[in-house]
């Protein structure tokens, strides 16, 4: 009886030791598997990163994908589309989906276009796409900005008319935006050729718009749209601050610009407008 239980406990001990040894072995094996698998995955990740980085450096300039000569109206270094050549510089930052932009543009857009056409001001347009999420995944902001830039690149004299059409037809936020066909018909309505509108669908300036958006919100100093600068002084574009000039009443901005052209600084004009 005693002998039997001693033999049994010896067998138990042997089984225990065998199990422990098996576990040690398994630990070593799992450790090896972890090292191999993790190294392989890390190597793949690093490989992909290097591949992507190399591919990017070899890519043609995203601002000029087709390599064609860019008309003077499009300034790639600042991601802006320039109209007119007056000494007074007006920067406009907008997203075609932003209701505030629409309301300001419908008030002052035509005046600015006219002053740019007469070379009284240099109008620099910055189309942005950060409200792409508000068009039920149809990316209206990008599509509209791309159409605008395409027109500016090919038929610059019709670009601001086209923009005004888009503001007049501005879709509601969180709708699907204007369709591609609608963008084409708006462009053709203001005289843009079919040759140009045929290029809309390719979204050729997608990367340009991404870069423009980044640029405007970083070095451009804009926090929200609509953004407006006169000679570099921010009139609108900070999310917490009211506009420094009344952008909702027709004529106010034109009057302010005329005073600046006549020699006043924009700061003086703002101060006087606030004092009234």
């Amino acid at each position, binding site marked *: 009886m005693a002998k039997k239980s001693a033999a049994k406990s010896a067998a138990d001990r042997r089984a225990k030791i065998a199990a422990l040894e098996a576990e040690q072995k398994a630990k070593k094996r799992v450790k090896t598997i972890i090292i191999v698998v993790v190294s392989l995955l890390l190597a793949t990740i690093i490989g992909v*990163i290097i591949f992507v980085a190399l591919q990017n450096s070899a890519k043609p300039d995203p601002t000029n994908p087709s390599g064609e000569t860019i008309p003077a109206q499009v300034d790639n270094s600042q991601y802006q589309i320039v109209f007119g050549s007056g000494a007074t510089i007006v920067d406009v930052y907008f997203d075609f989906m932003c209701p505030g932009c629409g309301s300001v543009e419908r008030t002052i857009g035509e005046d600015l276009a006219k002053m740019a056409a007469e070379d009284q001001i240099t109008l620099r347009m910055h189309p942005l796409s950060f409200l792409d999420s508000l068009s039920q995944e149809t990316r209206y902001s990008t599509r509209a900005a791309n159409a605008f830039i395409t027109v500016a690149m090919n038929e610059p004299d019709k670009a601001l008319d086209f923009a005004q059409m888009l503001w007049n037809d501005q879709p509601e936020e969180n709708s699907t935006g204007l369709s591609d066909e609608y963008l084409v018909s708006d462009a053709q309505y203001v005289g843009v050729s079919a040759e140009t509108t045929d290029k809309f669908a390719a979204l050729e300036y997608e990367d340009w718009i991404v870069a423009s958006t980044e640029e405007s919100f970083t070095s451009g100093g804009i926090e*929200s749209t609509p953004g407006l600068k006169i000679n570099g002084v921010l009139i609108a574009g900070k999310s917490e601050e009211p506009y420094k000039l009344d952008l909702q009443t027709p004529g106010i901005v034109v009057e302010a610009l005329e005073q600046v052209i006549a020699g006043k600084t924009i700061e003086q004009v703002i101060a006087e407008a606030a004092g009234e």
Partner: protein
Amino acid sequence: MDTAGGFLGLRQKNAWIFGFMLFSSCVSLVASFVLSYDALEWAANPNQLLPCDISSTLSCTAVGTSWQAHLFGFPNSFLGLVAEPVVITIAVASLAGVRFPRGFMLAAQVVYTLGFIFAYWLFAQAYFAINALCPWCLLVSLSTTLVFSTLTHVNIRDGNLFLPEGISAKLQWACRVGIDLLIVLVWLLTVVLMIVVKYGSTIFG
């Protein structure tokens, strides 16, 4: 026969498991807080960009304004604000020596498993449907994975899951030899690989 030594031994210790759980749940809480704050900010002024809008593909607003981000009618991150403090409490109490009843830990496991599934459902939506990633959401995915793995580990180790003895023993053995570590590492690195494959050109361009 140094069964308790080394990193694999340390991984079975309460100090490591609950310390790591505490750290991960704090990270998750911070990320949830930032996302909740941003959701309120954005609701107050939709025409603005948030600091985490790095580009059109690395963007909090693109993800945060999607229907998926408000699946239950409020920002998902509110759930993190509710759930993570519970995990923090469990971790701190356990570090101090408290042992919770098995049923309590099982409940925690069930709820956190749902949270874990939800976190990766969101990741999949962002990756495949919204086509944008938000940095804070990724941090939530990461920390949720870490909390889930430590919670599961401790519940397997302590037999809190009311599993049949055979299965429980097998799972405990798997944790002791480090198979759970292998799974978590492969999981996380696969996610990183997916992100790099799809978004590498935006992130490293």
